[in-house]
């Protein structure tokens, strides 16, 4: 067992939904409920709490030095698993063994006290995470240096910007030097430079042979940082393998491909406070035989057709956002960015948007559509992931060569020239 970092055996965790809903129980509630159950046992039985299994019989071994990516939708059980492993909550059944000091970055900065200064919070937060003060003394300069807080170290952290706050918190956590590090979506914060620093630090930790459990919705980060990956769904491990295979398994399971003409009534991607306006969206085909298409070749125009019904509202803007397979926005087009758009949409109608001259690299893309008004709210109706389409491998360059995955989002034509200064004899001879 010498090379094991974590051994999880049949771990399950049950929450009682009823209990969660009325968790701020008062004594009165208990007395009333007790009384009710005395009076009529039947109603009590039927109104019993509903169970929810956040984790179902998870069995998993994590080897020392493994960088494991935990992938899954919200509510799949990732956070519960991490909470059980970091001893914040207990499992309902099963058992886990942890070999070595475990540090978690479940939510950086939770131990921070806003009134205290950066210096004071380093000591407090360090102590909360299990560092001895002698250890903090030793690493203090390194922590301050890493955070880049510098002269603000003796300022109360409530005066910090949110970026500074997170940087300091991550700096403390990163210097905990645990054998097993648990990281949950910390990289969503901070500016790009600091994120890079954090990833670098994680890479260092991994190189030192320590074990990392990493949760992220950013598949690019999972693929870059992790060696292995598991996919969780509804509390079960549904896939286990290399990080790349796991993230691809996850992506293919979540992308419910909607292509051609998509009816947007009851679309799951509609954001919470949207008023449904966009009725449908379709990608017009370049093929005469069918009106709507699922794919284009690089360099072909993208023509979207948006049917709307604004009701009584008067809207004057529409936006399309194109997302890459890994979820980042590749580009945005908006009616207002077009110089000849002078329409006001009220009632029912159709918008057509032709995106010219964009040569996307081959792959799967998804489209976010939003309609709104500049005066009121720009995001009157927003539907994420409304439509997806594929860019096929085409002979864009006219050379028979095409872009490989990972070579960027766009196929871009380029012209090259060469000015020889001195040529080798061999080349001359060949010519």
């Amino acid at each position, binding site marked *: *067992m*010498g090379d094991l970092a974590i*051994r999880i055996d049949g771990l399950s965790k049950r*929450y009682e939904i009823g209990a969660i809903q009325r*968790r*701020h*129980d*008062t*004594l*009165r509630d208990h007395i009333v409920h007790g009384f009710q159950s005395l009076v009529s046992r039947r109603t009590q039985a039927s109104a019993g709490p509903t169970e929810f299994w956040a984790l179902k019989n998870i069995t998993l071994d994590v080897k020392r030095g493994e960088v494991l990516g935990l992938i899954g939708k919200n509510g799949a059980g990732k956070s519960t698993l991490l*909470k*059980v*492993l*970091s*001893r*914040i*909550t*207990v*499992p*309902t*059944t*099963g*058992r*886990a*063994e*942890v*070999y*070595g*000091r*475990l540090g*978690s970055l*479940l*939510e950086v900065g*939770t*131990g921070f*006290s806003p*009134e*205290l200064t950066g210096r*004071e919070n380093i*000591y*407090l937060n360090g*102590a*909360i*995470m*299990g560092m*001895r*003060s*002698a*250890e903090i003394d*030793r*690493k203090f300069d*390194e922590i301050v240096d890493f955070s880049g807080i510098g002269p603000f170290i003796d300022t*109360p952290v409530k005066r910090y910007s949110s970026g500074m706050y997170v940087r300091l918190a991550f700096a403390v956590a990163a210097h905990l*030097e645990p*054998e097993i590090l648990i990281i949950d979506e910390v990289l969503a914060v901070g500016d790009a430079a600091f994120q890079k620093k954090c990833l670098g630090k994680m890479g*260092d930790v991994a190189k*030192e042979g320590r074990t990392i459990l990493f949760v992220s919705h950013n598949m690019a980060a999972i693929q870059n940082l992790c060696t292995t990956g598991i996919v969780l769904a509804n509390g079960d491990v549904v896939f286990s393998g290399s990080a790349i295979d796991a993230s691809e398994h996850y992506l293919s399971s979540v992308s419910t491909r909607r292509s051609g003409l998509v009816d947007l009534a009851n679309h799951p991607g509609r954001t919470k406070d949207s008023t449904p306006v966009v009725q449908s969206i379709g990608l017009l085909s370049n093929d005469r035989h069918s009106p709507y298409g699922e794919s284009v070749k690089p360099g072909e125009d993208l023509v979207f057709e948006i049917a709307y019904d604004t009701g009584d509202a008067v809207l004057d803007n529409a936006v399309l956002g194109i997302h890459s397979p890994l979820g980042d926005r590749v580009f945005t087009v908006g009616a207002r960015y077009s110089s000849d758009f002078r329409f006001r949409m009220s009632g029912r109608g159709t918008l057509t948007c032709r995106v010219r001259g964009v040569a996307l690299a081959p792959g799967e893309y998804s489209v976010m559509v939003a309609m709104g008004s500049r005066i009121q709210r720009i995001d009157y109706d927003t539907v994420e992931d409304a439509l997806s389409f594929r860019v096929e491998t085409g002979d864009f360059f006219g050379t028979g060569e095409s872009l490989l995955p990972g070579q960027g989002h766009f196929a871009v034509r380029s012209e090259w020239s060469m000015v020889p200064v001195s040529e080798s004899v061999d080349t001359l001879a060949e010519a």
Partner: protein
Amino acid sequence: MSSASGMPGYAASSAPTVVIEPSRGFMDLDLMSLYRSWELVYFLAWRDVKVRYKQTAIGIVWAVLQPLATMLIFTLLFSRLSGMPSDGLPYPIFSFAALLPWTFFSQAISRSGSSLVNNAALVTKVYFPRLAIPVAAVLAPIVDFVVTFAILLVMMAYYRISPGWPLLTLPLFLLMSAVTALAVSLWLSALCVRYRDVAVVIPFLLQVWQFLSPIAYPASVVPERWRLLYSLNPIAGVIEGFRWALLGTAMPDLRLLAVSGAAVVVLLVGGVIYFRQTELTFADVV
């Protein structure tokens, strides 16, 4: 980056560092983990002290003001208006010597009772021995106690009261009030996680408790046949002890003190067991 020199050599042992299981044995109290994290207790208590008086105009003076004001009101109400006996001592110092441990005790209870709830963000995000939170909350008001104690010394000089050898026993009585506060806090803080009623009840509880303790009056006014029942309140013993140690009143009855002590021990052991049993679900319930 420096190497992980501060940590135990895990590679040598094949036994797991931590075993995570649904529940633990009834008597598995693991007080060692609390002992190992005394630095955390210290930092939490230190945070409580710092944060309490940050951005206040008069800072730590508040710690003194409250018992002083209470002393003035008591003197006016009980001594001047109703002629309450005070064991032959000037009434102000008689009541102040009692307000000293009482203020510490009531501060400790009211701070630690809701301490787990106030630190919910911590409890649901990081693991550490949960006992550290109420223990720190009980220790924090000791700073206020020390400051108030200085005022008492000034008053003793003013009234020309010089304590004898019983002064040496004072730490024992302070310890007793801290342990009592901790015992009560363990129950209240753990209960408060589930029943927020506790937070509402605490001020009322303290008010009643104050009248059941010999602060405004001497314990000697309690009829003899009620004394045994009365001494179940450990704070009564603590206050009598303070007056004896500082002001030279009659020595507390040792048998009654033993009853107080036994009450504290029962309360504390029960509190620790209850706390350890319920702490497993704190993060789910809070």
